[in-house]
């Protein structure tokens, strides 16, 4: 593909300063997303997938800091923007939905107020126009009687409705790029399916590019065009979704896929990956997965495997890929 991707992340590095020394939560991560596509980022808790997203939005709080790399959105490096210019990008060109719809909305302000804040900031319109826009968005995400809900407080809505309101808010200023940070994790399964469908429909309708973060492989296979697997703050593998599920090359990806319980199959014990994710400040010098890997070789411990393209569009960081 020769056309410029909508988002290019190059060698992103985010470091947290702790008492035990600097901790690199995101280490040399690079990826592209083309316009209208969805990239899924998978990984266990603590693998750096959320920190990657916050780094893109520049929402990393002290003591964390993006310490290197570039984030090009439509060719513009947003890491170099001033704080004021970044405020225009956040919630405007680039929006984000969060995991917990229960806590991600301010409990003391109405849904309408929270939407208007954003719309008036980015669209520079009158309160009346903003209200119209907010109600239109609430209707678009399938909230019944949006005029009433506009004046509701978050606690008066159910979890699913709150997540819909959250989505309406994120999309209210026509973002070209949406980051969804585990938007369905806190919802029950039927609501999850509805929200996924909603995001997919809106993506098509509004021609949005999406970065979808989850630890649920089922969700990833359903929603994304490409997948990036992360472990210990680093990229293990990147491939198109079907390629990744059919030919996982990194031992970690393979183990993740193998550990999914299969429908209709009764087993004594579910397959797991032995051990647990190393703490970010005690990551091994070489491949972060070295302690749990079943295909470990002598060079794995000492040097980091580089991300190599093994098939067109399929990149793996492993000395001994499957």
């Amino acid at each position, binding site marked *: 593909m020769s056309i410029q991707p909508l988002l290019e992340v190059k060698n992103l590095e985010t470091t947290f300063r702790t008492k035990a020394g600097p901790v690199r939560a995101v280490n040399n991560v690079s990826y592209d997303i083309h316009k209208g596509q969805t990239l899924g980022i998978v990984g266990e808790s603590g693998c750096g997938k959320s920190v990657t997203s916050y780094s893109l939005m520049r929402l990393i709080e002290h003591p964390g800091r993006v310490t290197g790399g570039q984030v090009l959105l439509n060719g513009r490096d947003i890491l170099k923007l001033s704080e004021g210019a970044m405020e225009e990008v*956040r919630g405007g060109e680039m929006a984000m939905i969060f995991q917990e719809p229960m806590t991600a*909305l301010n*409990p003391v*302000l109405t849904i309408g107020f929270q939407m208007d*804040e954003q719309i008036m900031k980015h669209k520079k319109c009158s309160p009346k126009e903003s209200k119209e826009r907010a109600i239109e968005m609430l209707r678009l995400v399938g909230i019944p009687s949006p005029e009433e809900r506009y004046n509701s407080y978050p606690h008066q809505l159910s979890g699913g409705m709150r997540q819909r309101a959250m989505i309406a808010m994120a999309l209210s200023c026509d973002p070209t790029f949406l980051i969804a940070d585990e938007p369905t994790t806190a919802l029950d399964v039927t609501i999850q399916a509805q929200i996924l469908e909603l995001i997919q429909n809106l993506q098509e309708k509004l021609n949005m590019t999406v970065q979808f973060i989850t630890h649920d492989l089922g969700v990833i296979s359903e929603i994304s065009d490409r997948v990036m697997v992360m472990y210990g703050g680093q990229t293990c593998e990147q491939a198109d979704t079907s390629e990744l599920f059919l030919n996982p090359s990194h031992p970690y990806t393979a183990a993740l896929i193998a550990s999914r319980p299969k429908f209709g199959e009764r087993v004594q014990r579910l397959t797991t990956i032995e051990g647990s994710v190393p703490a970010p400040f005690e990551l091994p010098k070489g491949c972060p997965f070295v302690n749990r890997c079943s295909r470990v070789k002598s060079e794995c411990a000492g040097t980091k495997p580089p991300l190599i393209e093994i098939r067109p569009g399929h990149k793996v960081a492993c000395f001994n890929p499957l």
Partner: protein
Amino acid sequence: MTTFITRRILQTLAVIVILSYVCFYLMSLMPGDPVDMMVASNPKITAEDVARLKSLYGLDQPVYKRYASWMGSIVQGDLGYSRTYRVPVQELMGPRLWNTFLLSAISLILSIAIAVPLGVLSALKPGSKTDYVVNLFSFGGISIPSFWLAIVLIILFAVKFPLLPAGGTQTIGAENMGFWADIKDRSIYLILPVLSLSIQQIGRFSRFTRSTMLEAMRNDFIRTARAKGLSRSTVIWQHGFRNALIPLITILALSFSGLFSGAILTETVFAYQGVGKLVYDSIIGNDYNVAMISFVISVSMVLLMNLVADILYGFADPRISYQ
């Protein structure tokens, strides 16, 4: 909302009656009554005189009857007569209450105006130099005993550098020199007492603001607000402080209930004609009427401010409703 308020006011009245009875009873447990004191200072009074005086003042009656008759006259607006000052309680306490109110209200408003921004400031960057300085100041304010601070202030600003009066409430005769001159004169006398009260309150309030604000800024919706592209100040005040306000209301409302109780130590050190010293003297001197009225005022203020806090919650937090 109206039914809630009416119900709460009725409850408040009931609590006032119960607590004033408890106070009345406790006062009656103290050894001696006004007539006994009279006897002590005048050995010529005979036993018959004592009995006659006791029945004349109703002191031979059981406590509940005395309470009932006291309550009866209070309701009719007769607060009684001060035994030690020999003037009606209204006349004695009116100006004293006003002085105390001035002192407490000014220092309270000053403290809030300074402490809340300080607390917010230090909460925004926990662990930073600003935070350390604010914390140091706060702990200092909380830990320094107010009487000691008052004395140091007097030594500094009235003795070493005689800029301000060491004590008192106003210059004699200043109230006849016109409205503005009176205000100016009183303000000069207020500076040191207000300062010594405020430093302590600023410490307490800023610590409290800091912790509620820290908690508020840790909420997920703060991140949402930032992700919407809102400016930093909107995020801090509209989203953070708006939520920190809810616990803050409680401590502030309860502080307001101390407006008429007086600060005994500060008032004593600065010889300020407030109600604090008066109440202390009235208890020691068996001056029932004065003591009881100040009890009732203190109790009522605490209850009233609790009610105010409850009503304010309803406005600050939509999750609380009084249906």
